[in-house]
Structures are given as C-alpha cells and as structure tokens.
C-alpha cells in the first residue's frame, strides 16, 4: 500500500463565534487577573466545524465530500490546503496542493488575465519559467485568447471560473481541491473540466478532492464519497451507496419536519414521474436563482381516490429547511373529476432561491382529510450563481431601486 497523500487523524476544528475582544477589552482584562479568568469562562460560543474526522486518501484517488450546508466540507478543504490549522488532531499532506476553494481567489481585479496567471502560478509555488512553459496551455484551456490582456474585473463569472480552473489544474498539483466552483462555467467547459480531472487522476496519478452538490459529477468522477454531517463522518464508501443514503436521510428528515406520514392507502396513487422543466420547457437540473421552474407530475390512481386526490409541491434545502410548500387546492386548483391518471403541472414564475442544492418534493394527498398522504416523490435540483453567498441571505429576492428626488428640489 503506498503512503497516503492526505491523512486526517482525529481532526477537530473549532471556530469562535462572534468577535474577538478588542484591544480595550483585552487591556482592561489585563488589569485584574480575576477578570481574565471570567472572560475565559464566558468564552463558550464555540462552533465545532469538525469533530474527530479520520480520513486517508491514496494517490490516484478522487474523493467527493457531500453533506448539508455547515457540515464542515469547506473546512476540510481549508485544512488540506494549509489555510487553517486543526484545533486538535493532525492533518498530513504530502506534495503540492492546488486549490480552487473560491472563484477568483488569488486574482487581482485590476490586473490582466496574463498578469494574473503569473500571480496565481507564483502563489502555487511555480517559477516564472515553469509558468511561461505552461502559459499557452492554460490560455487555450480557458479559451481566453482574445481576453488575456483585459483586466479580469471585466470578466464574466464563467470566464473567471475557466481561468481559475485552468491555472489550478495545469500546475501539476499532487492534490487538487475543488469546491463547487465548476458549476459556474457552461456545459461545454464543465465537460472539459471533467475530462481534465479524469486525466489528472487516471493518467498522472494525482489525487482530487471535490465538494459538490452536483451529485452527477461526484458519481461520475469519484471512487469514494465522504458524507459529513455536523462535523462528523456519517458514512464513507462507494459513491452510489453513500449518495443514496444521504438523499434518503434528507428526505426522511423532511418528512419528520413536515409531519407527513404515508398511510396504508399508499399504493392507491402512484406518482410515475416528476420532471423539472426550465423556462424553455426542457428538463433541467440546474437553475439560476430567479429562474422559472415547472414541476411536471405524471400519476396514476385507483377510481376510489380519483375524486379525492390533490397534490402538494414544495422545495426543501439540503439542510432540510422547508423553503416553501404549496397545496394545489389552496391555490384554487382542483383536479377534474373522473380521471385515473394524467399529468399535472405546477409552475413557479421564479424560484427565488440562493445557490445550493434542493429537493423538489411532490406529495399526493387526500383533499377531504387534509394532509393524509397517499405517496410522495422527490427530485433534486441545484441553484447556481456566482457572487451570491451567505451575506445575501437565505432566499433570493432583488428589488428594483429608484431615487426619489426630495419634494423641495424638484
């Protein structure tokens, strides 16, 4: 067995919540020993981002990390990249780590693409000559030949992502860390990233760690998946099994939260398929924050329940937050009587969700005995956008703005 490139031994990482004591507070606490001890005792607002994580990654492995928001995924990558140190336990990393933890980190907006390639290469520890040798490959991969002498502040988010990935992937890292950033590029670019990652792993024997909500990529690329839940490794193993376990846990939490419970009438209604359609009416898995979405439900039912049937649809975030749930009858929609199957569509003019991964869940329920559930079904989808993060809140809603000229100045 070769020596692992990454080894986590009982890694704990704590973050202090709130602010640091200011100089004034610190000085006044020096004044008496007693007060300092009090301050230490009060210091309980600690968030444990990781609690006792063990992990070994061998050369040539691709490991996916999944889990709800706040599970510690990014913290793990930051520990591997050496950006932060564990509170206790040990992290061993062998070789050069190249990280794509956030879009455009390490780029300076006022410098051109060319200058930024050299800057980024230097951050990753390359000599000028090595960067010069790789320069053309990087530019070609990013498809930015025409814009290479434009300051990157004029780049679109897709161009940023392309340049960032191109540099990170071409510096021949021993370990490549990818956090969610690939989702910004267009489909063709994502495809090439996928091939590049495949190349790095299978032809060059590098190791890749990726955090993604796009389980499609994780399934296709990873040979192992780590499921993190509140800072602990919940499950680790073969991608399909772990992803399935994770998805079913998300939904079982969701059912508990919603107080739903399938009854023995399950089987009276069968939801044949649930398809999510984008604004062009085409099936899609990823959406922009304000995109419209249509939920197409194909169902069959027995005549016994046909006239009592209603549907509810809703969106659940991957940390089981119930974003919204709507009942067809409350929206003033009743299924026409006498049909034992068909297609029902629920159309949202705008999702209004922040980037992340979500489940669209559909439940078939009894109209008369409100909320008695016949059956349910979920479909995952992702919302992606650059430049939106936790500062922008939990939901996406952008007002229109205007300036009102004061009365007396008109």
């Amino acid at each position, binding site marked *: 067995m070769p020596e692992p490139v990454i080894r986590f031994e009982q890694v704990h990482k704590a*973050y*202090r919540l709130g602010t*640091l004591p*200011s*100089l*004034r507070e*610190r000085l006044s606490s020096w004044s008496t020993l007693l007060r300092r001890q009090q301050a230490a005792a009060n210091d309980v607002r600690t968030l444990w981002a990781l609690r006792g994580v063990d992990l070994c990654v061998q050369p040539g492995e691709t490991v996916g990390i999944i889990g709800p928001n706040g599970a510690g995924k990014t913290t793990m990558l*930051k520990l591997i*990249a*050496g*950006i*932060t*140190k564990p509170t206790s336990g040990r992290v061993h990393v062998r070789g050069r*780590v190249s*990280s794509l*933890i*956030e879009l455009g*980190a*390490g780029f*300076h907006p*006022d*410098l051109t693409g060319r*200058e930024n390639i*050299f*800057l980024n290469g*230097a*951050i990753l*520890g*390359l*000599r*000028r000559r090595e960067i010069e040798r790789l320069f053309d490959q990087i530019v070609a991969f990013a498809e930015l030949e025409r814009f290479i002498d434009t300051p990157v502040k004029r780049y679109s988010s897709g161009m940023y992502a392309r340049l960032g990935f191109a540099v990170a992937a071409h510096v021949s890292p021993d370990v490549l860390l990818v956090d969610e950033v690939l989702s910004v590029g267009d489909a063709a670019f994502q495809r090439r990233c996928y091939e590049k990652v495949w190349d790095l792993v299978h032809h060059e024997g590098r190791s890749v760690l990726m955090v993604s909500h796009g389980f499609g990529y994780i399934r296709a690329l990873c040979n192992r998946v780590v499921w993190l839940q509140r800072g602990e490794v919940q499950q680790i193993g073969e991608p399909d099994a772990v992803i399935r376990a994770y998805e079913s846990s998300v939904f079982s939490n969701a059912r508990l939260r919603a107080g739903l419970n399938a009854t023995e009438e399950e089987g009276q209604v069968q939801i044949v398929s649930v398809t999510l359609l984008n604004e062009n009416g085409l099936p899609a898995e990823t959406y922009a924050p304000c995109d419209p979405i249509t939920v197409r439900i194909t169902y069959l039912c027995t005549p016994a329940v046909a006239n009592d049937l209603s549907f509810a649809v809703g969106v659940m975030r991957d940390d089981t937050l119930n974003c919204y749930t709507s009942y067809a009858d409350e929206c003033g929609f009743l299924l026409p009587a006498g049909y034992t199957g068909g297609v029902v569509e629920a159309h949202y003019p705008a999702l209004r969700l922040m980037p992340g991964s979500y489940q669209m869940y559909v439940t078939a329920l009894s109209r008369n005995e409100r909320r008695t559930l016949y059956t349910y079904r979920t479909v995952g989808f992702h919302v992606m956008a650059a430049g939106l993060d936790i500062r922008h809140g939990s939901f996406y809603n952008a007002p229109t703005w205007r300036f009102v000229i004061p009365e007396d100045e008109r």
Partner: protein
Amino acid sequence: MIRHLQMLWLHRELLWVWTAREVRVRYKQSLLGVGWAILQPLAFTLMFTAVFSVVVKVPTGGIPYPIFSFTAMLPWTLLATSVNFGVSSLVSNMNLVTKIYFPREILPMAATGAAIVDFLVAGVLYVAMLLWYRMPIYPTALLLPLLLALQLALIVGVVLYGAAGLVFYRDIRFLVPLGLQLWLYASPVIYPASLIPERWQWLYRLNPMVGLLESYRAVLLLGQLPPASLLAPASVISLALLVSGYLWFKRVEPAFADLI
C-alpha cells in the same frame, strides 16, 4: 525557523510577482503614476526647507538645507511607505489569506519591496540634486548597501509586528499614522541628532532611525564612516526586531485565516 525560511525561499517568485503587482496596482489608476514616488518626499523637503532654513534656522553644518533634509527624507519615506502599506497588507488581502495558502509574510514583505522601488526612483532625483548643488561624491557612499540592509531589517521587523498585530487588534490601524508622525519628529530627519541635549541622548539613541539616518548623512554628505556610537545600538535593535518579529509572525500565522 529553518523550515519557515525554506518555505519562503520556495515562494520567492511570489515575492517578486507580488511586489510588481503592488507597484503596478498602486500607480495604475493614478494620474501621476510613479511620479508620486518623487513628489511625496520632494514636497515634504520643500515644505521643511521653507520652514527650517528660512523661518527657523536649523544648524546643518554648512550643508544646504534641502540636501541635508532630503538625505534623511528618502530613507524615512521608505520606512513610512512600507509601514503604511505593510501593516494593512494582511487585512486588505483577506480574500487571499482565507482562500489560499502561501507564506503570509510575503504580503508585508512585498509592501516593503514596492516601497524600495519608490525609493530607487526618488534616488535618481537625489543624485540629480547632489550634482546640482555640486556636492562631492565620497567613497564612503559605498557603505550605502550596508546601511540600507540594516534599515530593511528594521522595516521588515516593524511591518511583521504591525501586520500580524492588526489581524488581532484593528485599533492598530489608527495607531499607525499617529505613530509615524511621532517617530518622524523623534528622528533626525529635519534636524541633526546633535540638537538633542547630551543627557537625553541615551534615550534618543534607542530609536534605531537615529543611528541609521545620521549614518546616511555621514557617508553621503561628510565622507565620514558611520558614527559607531549611533550605528551600533541601531543595528542591534533593528536585527532584534527582525528576528523576533519573524518568529512571532510565524507563531501566530495559523490563526490569521480564522480571524480575518
């Protein structure tokens, strides 16, 4: 310590690139560009010349006042610019510090590097001034690199302390302009060190800039060797600041990304 220095050596390219970036970004969107490097110390020198050679006479030992003060103003500006930009370098590049790893001392050191570029540009003006005033060029000027090296030790030491300190205490941001102002008047930039009464000299010489600035004047304007009684304490203090500053910086470095 050795391991840290190896890591720094490995990233020497970044120090270059980042210094170039500092210079370019600083002047890219300003009208005068690199002209600011000359204008700043020049304006101060003109101002001080007006005040201290016309209004109040400061004894300069027969050296024209503009040359007398500019000789000290250039190294002083090197220090002031480095400290100004260096102290805030970690905090103002927080998106880098929290997203990518590299030896963090590169950021404050590159701020010093950029200040050296300014220093060299202004140095051209200085040479022109020497010629204009028909000052003799002394062989002792060859000691300049040594003095500069000592001053850089002092600067990097102070900047490392300041930059890391600012991560923990934002109050330092307000202390910097005040501290620099006080330090300027506590250093023989606009007046000679001999103006300080003998009984305060021991205290005065604890300021390493005293020994350094007087040495610059000695080797450039008088053709004398640096006064040992001034340069010795300055060297010891500067080197001590550099070593202790670096060690402290590396000790607290792992906390930066969590705090910024």
